[in-house]
């Protein structure tokens, strides 16, 4: 025990920081951006980052609370269905029920929170496995969304709102305005997960539920709150999605849950819970977005893009246990 303790702290802080999965993903992101800037024609245009951010904003938003859910060792597969439901609600409430836009958006976010609380209640208080619960609600929420609007689409939204979704911070620049609300939410999420006692509890639950319980963490309430947050933020992503495309459809964001989860895992969050930090998933989302963007500019088809992202994800997930084992063997050899 003492030697192990000694070994970990034998490394200076900057080296320990460099050793993390998160850093590796950020390095990969930087490498892709540098390579694409140099080798992919048109990648260096300001439009590239602009479109990249517009495309990945829903993923970035959902990745924040979903990371916390996964750190507790749970999963939420219903996020994309909540995006779809929220999109439909905004459309129906605004265009059919005549609500003002802000009220429709707020109602959609509130319904998202309710969706999340159903997930959270079933997982935390009834004790059902989150995989099963959220596979069920994935179908349920998507079903309600498509049932409400059928194959129709609502496309009549106020220009001031749809323009905001596409507005740039600086005219002609490459950063869209939506990054500002995202940055605020990201700062709040970092505070919650990394600097608050609540966040400490989130890790404790993921590492050892029993121990967390006995050390005073309210396991049930923490999980419920995280699912509610995930629902509300997914619904917010749904509002953005609707405005970005100016179209509320029941099948909006179909399959988005797998993209978010892929990015979160790529960003170094352990699917078994207890490990991960928010900058990892954020870099993971951007890495996937940048690879897809560069490959599209190279004229690659969607199949090639999916293959590369799949390989990237599998490689990064496989790398961790393999490298851990290598490190453990080295340590064992040194001790002999």
């Amino acid at each position, binding site marked *: 025990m003492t030697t192990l303790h000694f070994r970990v702290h034998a490394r200076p802080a900057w080296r320990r920081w460099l050793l993390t999965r998160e850093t*590796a993903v950020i*390095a990969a992101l930087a490498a*892709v951006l540098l390579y694409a800037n140099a080798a992919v*024609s048109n990648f260096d245009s300001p*439009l590239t980052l602009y479109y990249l951010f517009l495309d990945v904003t829903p993923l970035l938003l959902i990745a924040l609370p979903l990371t916390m859910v996964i750190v507790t060792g749970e999963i939420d597969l219903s996020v994309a269905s909540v995006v779809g439901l929220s999109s439909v609600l905004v459309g129906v409430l605004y265009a059919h029920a005549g609500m003002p836009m802000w009220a429709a958006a707020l109602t959609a976010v509130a319904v998202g929170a309710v969706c999340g609380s159903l997930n959270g209640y079933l997982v935390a208080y009834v004790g059902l496995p989150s995989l099963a619960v959220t596979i069920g609600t994935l179908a349920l929420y998507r079903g309600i969304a498509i049932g409400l609007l059928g194959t129709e689409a609502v496309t009549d939204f106020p220009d001031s709102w749809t323009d905001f979704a596409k507005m740039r911070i600086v005219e002609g620049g490459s950063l869209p305005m939506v990054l500002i609300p995202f940055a605020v939410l990201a700062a709040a999420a970092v505070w919650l997960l990394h600097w608050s006692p609540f966040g400490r509890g989130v890790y404790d639950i993921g590492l050892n539920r029993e121990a967390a319980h006995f050390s005073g963490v309210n396991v049930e309430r923490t999980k419920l709150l995280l699912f509610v947050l995930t629902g509300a933020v997914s619904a917010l992503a749904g509002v953005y999605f609707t405005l970005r*495309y100016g179209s509320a459809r029941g099948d909006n964001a179909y399959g988005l849950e797998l993209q978010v989860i892929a990015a979160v895992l790529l960003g170094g969050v352990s699917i078994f819970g207890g490990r991960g930090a928010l900058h990892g998933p954020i870099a993971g989302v951007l890495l996937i977005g940048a690879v897809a963007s560069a490959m599209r500019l190279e*004229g690659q088809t969607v199949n090639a893009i999916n293959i590369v992202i799949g390989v*990237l994800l599998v*490689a990064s997930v496989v790398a961790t246990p393999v490298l851990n084992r290598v490190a453990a063997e080295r340590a064992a050899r040194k001790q002999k």
Partner: protein
Amino acid sequence: MRFDKKSIAVAATLVVSLGLSACGGGGDGGDDGAAFTFLPKNLGNPYFDTSEVGAQSAADELGVTVTQVGPDAASPEAQVPFINTAAQQGVDALIVSANDPTAICGALEEASGAGTKIVTFDSDTDPECRDLYVSQADAAGIAKVQIEMIADQIGGAGQIAILSASANATNQNAWIELMRTELESNYPDIELVDTVYGDDDDQKSFDQTAALLQSYPELKGIVSPTTVGIAAAARYLSTSEFKGQVSLTGLGTPNQMREYVADGTVAEFALWNPDDLGYLAVQAAAALVNGDIEGEEGDTFTTERLGEYTVGADGVVLLGEPFRFNAENIDDFDF
């Protein structure tokens, strides 16, 4: 030490990804001639694969480069990144089959603002979002060809019935109305006895066909202006005593109808030819890019394979009469 290994792993994945992205990346070189992006609703769809063949043959004729890209699911949000990419590349024209008439408009406007000509084909957007729409068929042509075919097949006289999609299907109802008018004015000996609805459901269309044949023993022909309906009706007829006695025609796809044409259940049916549609879309885009046309009503341009076309109201270019598929030509098509 762990970091070294890790960076090797990361580097390896990067090499894989960048290597893959680099291979075959020469498509957008476009040194000679204009560069067009061809964006169907989704990839791996036989209908659009056929239209891409036509697009490439037009590209060969014109000396332009046509690059096909597209999402794997036919959703508007999946199409938008490809439209954005075309805008970034500053391609000369974007030829797109829209997954939603309005949701992709913002992206199209940005591409258009960057100087790209926008041509929709097969599925249109709102007219203000594009320069031209290359339409596969118009309602009058679709109605007329079906009545001509059934009249041919039953010898110009007798009872016929229609097997439609759902009772409130906009397209089918418009066609049926035009078919009635066509029958009344030009085919006095043909009597339309009933219109039934299979709701574009295979089993229901199958059952409705059976019911029609029971209720009208004198029935000589069935017209089904929907691909689901005609395939279900053909399946029923092909194993029934009415095979060869009762004619069936309508709108169908060659792959669904091949076996029924081969076994003699169906003599001839119609649809448009997606190969021609892709060809004409690229030709129209080239005419816009070259400045031969502006996309205004009355503009004309000429194609090698299909002849002369005139731009109609709202910037619509009509491919022409629907295409008739029969035993002689059906094996030339795979969609």
